[in-house]
């Protein structure tokens, strides 16, 4: 994009108006996934495997079917009966297998059958009458054990081209990249440090369980209401799994009660539709919290080895990392992303990274905020911190010395465009937090973090009304206030008040394909499309003005919400406000809309630096986070308050991951902590205020300079907190979560 196309002085962008859907959300009238009902509606419930790995010998549903309240029972056979489109393979096949088990139950909580009945209680009661005969198989849930020669095989033949010969069949993808000669680099170093790190799987922990209401007739036409980050992917996937035409299924996204990556695929939606088709009535399915934990995507667990060489002055001479990620019983653990992001903050001559995608008997991992990046940053930034300690160097100075900047060859290959890492580090160094005195027992940690960000398919329509207001239809569900950002950007282009723009998340029948609200893409991609759709409408507005003034359209420009002559030579006309044009639009050429669709490529990578203070109780190993500061490059903050909110939310989730959240499996392979009581996400009293600094280094790939901000904020916290805790406790913590028993044990081992 040409630089002169970029805007730098703003009227609306950068202000902090109330969100358009605020009233709905504070009065309880906003409709989330479970809030919809339909006439004649049935309630569904899903039977789940109690075994981590078992062959399904037989399912007898006859007793359940005999109940008068039960209107349909489905198993995998009901999906297989469907005349699938040829070639249901790859990820569609994986999703089907995850949605309803086939020959084997692959993890504790894997769906094996489902019921639709006249009430939720009746459906749950009916599940108890379904008899499933299992042949229990050996299982494995740990990533390193799943790679060991004697590990039970989850599925033969799941590995792709990339896996070198001789690896266990549970290793399904392999990634290797880097540049330079790491051995030569290590030889140049004054200090070489090598260490291993482990992180447990964590769940996105959105407060709204998955919920949907599906209606499907035997004519192949259906309606689906669901809580999702992307209703087009839900449409496409459900259609494929049910063997119907994509366009015959209309999907409406409900308000979404959090996603963080976990609602980028389907779980219960195809089941509700299958039940509905069989019962010929609408079916509502709502997961319990326990189902959410057992059967929807946690992030991957990881086991990692890092080796870094450093000169006495802090220059990194070489870096090597090996990242083994376990992503449940299906391919998909982002070992490649972990590897590519791990060293991305640094300007390295010699770097090598290896990533593994490993299957185990756990639920299919789903994306979770910068998927893969936080684990790698934890390992790498811990080693760098330890090296700073050993060499007596300031951790921010060392990071600045090695920081990537424009033109640096990234660890994952290409050279960076304009990036803002150095700016975040300089801001961190200058922040009062960094120089504030620490109390006894406290430690300070810093870490950098990197994420790619994403563009994705995007389609936006903006329609003007006769009174001069505008309705904007976007296809990306609003998870955190994006309606406000869209309206601000549209207002900026149109020059009409923010309040005059109504933003709607359109259903799949009213807009072209839109990729999921993920990859920090909404403000970037839907924002870019909104700007261009608004500009498209402006072109038409200018045409109408030109026609009225009888001058060439090139002689008209758009300024402050009015068409004006572009210069003295264009003629002497009073500015023509938007509302004057739209008032007569029906008689001057017809309705005026703007539209834009594309797959914008230019999301712009993003960096952040976090500073955290932690206090450790040496007698109990309990950690308190006493101060936290997030500094991140947003490119351009459209609505700064919601940008701050993204920073704060990422940090809070990182604090949970670092300190207490984890998937705990018993010897039997069953999940031990499938309720919020035992899956300990941070509560209000656990956290301090979270300070934020928004750095703005504009992204050359967006008209207003936007970089996505949603994900990067969860990359630095694990390492920053580990560094703070390690510095407070005087012992290096290498395993997450750093729960009190682990810290106390480490303190004891350290004497």
């Amino acid at each position, binding site marked *: 994009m040409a630089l002169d196309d970029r805007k730098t002085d703003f009227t609306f962008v950068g202000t902090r108006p109330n969100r358009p859907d605020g009233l709905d959300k504070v009065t309880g009238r906003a409709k989330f996934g479970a809030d919809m009902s339909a006439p004649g509606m049935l309630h569904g419930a899903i039977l789940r495997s109690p075994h981590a790995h078992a062959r399904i010998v037989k399912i007898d549903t006859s007793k359940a079917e005999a109940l008068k309240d039960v209107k349909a029972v489905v198993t995998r056979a009901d999906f297989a009966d469907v005349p699938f489109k040829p070639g249901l393979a790859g990820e569609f096949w994986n999703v089907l297998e995850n949605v309803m088990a086939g020959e084997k139950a692959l993890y504790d909580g894997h769906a094996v059958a489902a019921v639709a009945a006249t009430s939720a209680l009746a459906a749950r009661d009916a599940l108890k009458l379904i008899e499933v005969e299992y042949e229990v198989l050996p299982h494995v849930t740990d990533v390193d054990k799943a790679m060991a020669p004697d590990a039970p095989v989850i599925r033969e033949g799941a590995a*792709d*081209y*990339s896996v*070198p010969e001789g690896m266990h069949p549970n290793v399904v993808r*392999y*990634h*290797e*990249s*880097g540049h330079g000669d790491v051995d030569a680099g290590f030889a140049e170093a004054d200090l070489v440090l090598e260490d291993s790190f482990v992180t447990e799987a964590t769940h*996105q922990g959105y407060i709204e369980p998955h919920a949907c209401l599906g209606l499907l007739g035997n004519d192949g036409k259906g309606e689906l209401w669901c809580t999702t980050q992307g209703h087009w992917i839900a449409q496409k996937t459900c259609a494929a799994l049910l063997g119907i035409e994509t366009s015959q299924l209309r999907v409406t996204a409900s308000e979404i009660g959090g996603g*963080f*990556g*976990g609602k*980028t695929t389907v779980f219960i939606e195809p089941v509700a539709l299958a039940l509905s088709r069989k019962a010929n009535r609408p079916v509502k399915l709502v997961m319990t919290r326990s189902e959410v934990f057992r059967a929807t995507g946690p992030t991957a667990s990881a086991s990692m080895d890092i080796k870094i060489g450093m000169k006495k002055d802090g220059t990194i001479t070489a870096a090597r990392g090996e990242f083994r990620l376990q992503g449940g019983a299906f391919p998909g653990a*982002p070992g*490649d*992303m972990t590897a*590519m992001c791990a060293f991305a903050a640094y300007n390295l001559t010699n770097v*090598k990274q290896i990533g593994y995608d490993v299957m185990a008997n756990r639920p299919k991992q*789903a*994306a*979770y*905020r*910068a*998927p893969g990046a936080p684990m790698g940053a934890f390992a790498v930034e811990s080693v760098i911190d330890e090296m700073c300690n050993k060499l007596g160097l300031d951790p921010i100075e060392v990071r600045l010395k090695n920081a990537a900047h424009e033109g640096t060859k*990234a660890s*994952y*290959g*290409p*050279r*960076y*465009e304009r990036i803002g890492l150095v700016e975040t580090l300089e801001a961190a160094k200058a922040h009062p937090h960094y120089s504030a005195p620490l109390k006894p027992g406290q430690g300070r940690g810093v870490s950098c973090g990197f994420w*790619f*960000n*994403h*563009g*994705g398919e995007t389609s936006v329509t903006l329609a003007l009304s006769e009174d001069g207001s505008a309705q904007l239809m976007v296809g990306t569900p609003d998870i955190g206030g994006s309606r406000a950002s869209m309206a601000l950007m549209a207002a900026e282009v149109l020059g009409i008040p923010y309040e005059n723009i109504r933003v709607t998340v359109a259903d799949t029948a009213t807009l072209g394909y839109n990729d999921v609200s*993920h*990859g*920090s*893409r909404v403000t970037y991609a839907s924002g870019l499309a909104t700007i261009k759709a608004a500009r498209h409408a402006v072109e038409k507005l200018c045409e109408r003005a030109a026609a009225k003034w009888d001058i060439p359209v090139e002689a008209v420009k758009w300024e402050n919400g009015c068409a004006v002559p572009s210069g003295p030579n264009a003629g002497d006309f009073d500015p023509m406000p938007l509302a004057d044009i739209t008032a007569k639009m029906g008689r001057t050429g017809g309705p005026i809309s703007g539209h834009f669709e594309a*797959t914008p*490529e*230019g*999301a712009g*990578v993003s960096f952040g630096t976090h500073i955290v203070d932690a206090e450790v109780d040496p007698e109990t190993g309990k950690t308190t986070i006493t101060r936290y500061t997030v500094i991140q490059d947003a490119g351009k903050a459209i609505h700064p308050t919601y940008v701050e909110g993204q920073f704060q939310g990422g940090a809070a989730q990182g604090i949970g991951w670092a300190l207490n959240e984890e998937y705990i499996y018993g010897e039997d392979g069953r999940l031990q902590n499938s309720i919020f009581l035992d899956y300990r996400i941070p509560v209000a009293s656990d956290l301090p205020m979270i300070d934020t600094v928004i750095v703005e280094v504009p992204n050359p*790939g967006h008209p207003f300079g936007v970089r996505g901000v949603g*994900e990067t904020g969860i990359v630095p916290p694990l390492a920053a907190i580990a560094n703070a805790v390690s510095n407070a406790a005087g012992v290096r913590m290498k395993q997450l979560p750093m729960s009190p028993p682990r810290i106390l044990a480490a303190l004891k081992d350290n004497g």
Partner: protein
Amino acid sequence: MVEVHLWSGLRSLTGGQQVVEVEAKTTGDLLRELVRTHPQLEGPIEAGVSIAIDGRVIATGLTEPIPEGSEVYLMQRLRGG
């Protein structure tokens, strides 16, 4: 000709080369030519790749122009949460 830098994991599919040359004016051309000249690259390309042109990451697009002399990297397809 465009010099395409591969990630090192792909060397086993290109007879050890980490940089290969193909004739391409767009990202679509580039992928097609890569598969034509190195058939073993079909696997990774089908599995999904992104292309960086002078540092700008093209996640999926096949129509992006590749200017003469630009630095081109093949990358694993990026995903997000």
